[in-house]
């Protein structure tokens, strides 16, 4: 029987992150930072008890230190904030606005949102983004899969099934963000990936044996060379997910908080449950995993992919055709498995628009629902 990572995961989600903190506070404890006001929360990261203002200050200051020490932005740049309407991007937008004003980064901020076309999930979260736009007075641009590729996620899932759909969504979204950024002439994109996300990615890459990604995934910003590529960074890289929720709760920020309806069967769910359990055993485990990921080093002589460009659309790619072209081709031809698995030999054929043999077509059609 297929173990569904969803069951444990939603159990954890249902428990409010703050109830445990409230129960623990039977006696008035003083804030450990200002020692004046009563502490109202316990920091998941360091287990210190803090009052509201000190927590806000600590949280914002940490993001500021991250930005400054890693030199993420330059004065006068235009920065696009990847906004999905979820907690990470809402908090990111808020904190970026606050820090931009407080420390005079001189950045021009705007919101970038991607509409994957998932009914019941994305249309609700987009409403949140539109609200954010009004609240923070930032310009907003929405790009949709429909206009970029001609396919919505709902239509893709109908063709592909429920097992490999996350691959499609992830690959398409990356390109969609870049295209949107280019349309708006943005210098950098920043996303709301938090510490839990990065740690999960490290674990997942170890489980999948993806040594190339393992080396890159802990980098706080991506390389900035190449045409059609907008460098992106993760200012919230060292912020715990629970602290982001705490921040949003106390600041009364509004966000949309449901799981994507197609995600329960994703492989990433296993890594996520494992990470959540690790955090329960030892709260610093998340930072420890990131620390391990940063200190990994790969032997010489291990084959690494080389960056080139796609033959068809000119986007960056390590193969002849970029992944989204391959996936799109598969979708348009009714061969959903074309992007899943290794088919390098077929890339040339597709590029030259040669027909595939009967045998190849048959293999690529079979879908395991």
């Amino acid at each position, binding site marked *: 029987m297929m173990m569904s990572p969803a069951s444990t995961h939603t159990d954890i989600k249902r428990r409010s992150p703050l109830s445990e903190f409230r129960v623990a506070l039977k006696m008035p404890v003083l804030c450990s930072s200002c020692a004046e006001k009563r502490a109202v929360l316990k920091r998941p990261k*360091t287990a210190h008890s803090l009052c509201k203002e000190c927590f806000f200050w600590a949280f914002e200051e*940490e993001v500021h230190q991250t930005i400054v020490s890693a030199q993420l932005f330059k004065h006068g740049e235009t920065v696009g904030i990847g906004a999905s309407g979820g907690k990470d991007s809402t908090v990111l937008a808020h904190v970026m606005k606050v820090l931009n004003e407080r420390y005079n980064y001189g950045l021009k901020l705007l919101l970038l949102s991607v509409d994957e076309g998932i009914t019941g999930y994305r249309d609700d979260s987009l409403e949140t983004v539109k609200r954010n736009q009004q609240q923070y007075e930032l310009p907003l641009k929405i790009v949709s899969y429909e206009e970029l590729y001609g396919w919505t996620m709902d239509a893709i899932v109908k063709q592909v099934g429920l097992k490999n759909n996350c691959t499609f969504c992830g690959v398409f979204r990356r390109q969609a963000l870049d295209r949107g950024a280019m349309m708006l002439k943005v210098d950098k994109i920043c996303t709301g990936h938090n510490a839990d996300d990065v740690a999960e990615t490290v674990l997942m890459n170890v489980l*999948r044996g993806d*040594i190339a990604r393992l080396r890159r995934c802990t980098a706080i910003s991506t390389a900035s060379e190449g045409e059609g590529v907008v460098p992106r960074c993760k200012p919230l890289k060292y912020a715990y997910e629970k602290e982001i929720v705490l921040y949003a709760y106390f600041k009364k920020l509004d966000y949309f908080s449901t799981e994507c309806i197609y995600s329960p069967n994703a492989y990433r769910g296993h890594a996520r449950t494992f990470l959540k359990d690790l955090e329960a055993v030892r709260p610093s485990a998340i930072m420890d995993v990131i620390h391990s990921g*940063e200190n990994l080093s790969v032997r010489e002589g291990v084959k690494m992919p080389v960056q080139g460009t796609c033959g068809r659309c000119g986007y960056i790619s390590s193969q002849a055709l970029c992944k989204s072209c391959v996936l799109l081709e598969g979708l348009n031809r009714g061969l959903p498995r074309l992007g899943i698995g290794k088919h390098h030999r077929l890339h040339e054929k597709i590029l030259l628009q040669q027909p595939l043999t009967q045998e190849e077509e048959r*293999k690529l059609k079979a879908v395991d629902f």
Partner: protein
Amino acid sequence: MCQVDEEYNGQLEHRVTPRVSKKCVKCKENTAVLIIRAGDAFCRGCFKEYFIHKFRAMLGKNRVIFPGEKVILAVSGGPASSSMLSQVREGLSRDAPKKLRFVPGIIYIDEGGASGQSMEERERAVAQLESVFRATNYHYHIVHLEQVLSLPSSVLEAGSSATEKPQTGSSYKAAVDQFIQTKKNQHPDLSLENAQSHLSSLSMHEVENGVTSPITPEHTQALQKLFASVRTLTAKEDLLHTLRQHLILHTARTQGYTKVMMGDSCSRLAIKLLSNISLGRGASLATDTGFSDPRYGDVVIVRPMRDYSSKEIAYYNRMFDIPSVFIPGLDTKAQDKASIQHLTESFVTKLQTDFPSTVSTIYRTSEKLHTACPPQNTNTQPFAKCLLCVCALDTKLEEFSAYQATLISEQLSQRRGPASSASQGQCCSSGGGQHQGCMTGEGGCCSSAKSTVDLKSLLCYSCRLTIKDMVNALPQYILSEAERRKRRSQMREEISEFLLDEEEDEAIPRVNGSLQ
């Protein structure tokens, strides 16, 4: 599915249901008796050959064990190490020209004191194992974990690597040939087996075989007190592992062994890899899970069983009656989430049932890693390595990293310091460099924790986490070594401007001043 390099070409064909009445895939004659991976059915004879061949291939591929060397086998009584013992016996007893050529010894560490077993249970387990060891005719050592409390502090000094043996194939072959020649010349009428048993019987008379020194209940109590002072099971297991390594290392050094063979199987190493990542040991993953572990310098740890899955070992042990003894450990019957190591074990095993290639994928990942800054240079100062785990320190503060972010968080949560430190009780263990006033000033709360503060700069990231969970002090030998290193680093700071050495101060952990 979900593996990066997976080919889907073959898998979409019709599935072949494995049946036991199939023929063995190797010899194609006999009936298969077991199935290893998805399609490989083996008969009894072919399986035995396959199993034995893997062991010898692993040793032969990595030519680290030179002929005539003394190698100590670390046997815990579990299936993997018992299997390793039987493989070594098998390899040494053959008449084939390619037989293994080293002098084996066995060590068993009795950890009953730490895991709370009674003396009778421990003696029973030891007796069972002794009967197994006696049957092999090799020299064996039974060491109690209590003896770790009386180790000399020199155990933590990295020994220099034994005579420079360049690891090229030609010199290995030359060494092997030379060995055969000398043996032939010395004992022209004795065969090699007799020579070896001759050697081992000699050594048996020299040192009292078996238990090295008797232990008293006070020792056991001291050990229990040490372990009781550790708050979390994760830290306990980590500490136990460290102490065990030190004991094995010490025994190997005093008895003249240059190699240690550990019985970690593929599944065990995959679990170890993941749990080490979770513990923050990313920098030393290659040494912890690779084939050879050169961190101690003069004694090299090798892991010849790393290609065997626990399933193969279990089948082999059952089919060929390999004796093994189950001894409960620290985490036996513990809950799933009791410790990180235990949690990882249950995670990997569960994932393996749904995705059978999990363990082998993790294994392949570990093969592609190497240690970030391999300590090739014998001039590397001893305190550039961690005090406990003897791996290179990974706490440099050059570029912005997770470690630095953690320090900043600690700082920011306790900005206006000393008044809050009394209530927190954590003052000393965090922000060490900044709160100097706290360290020397506040006598009361700080003095007991002072020893832990000093140690932090000598430890790697994950050993610091282990120490954080400990209330009491570590065994004396570790503390005295720590003191020695501190004195040396102070000495070095005084004369640093006069030293012409290129290895700069980055090797020296800063006691005062900048963030640690």
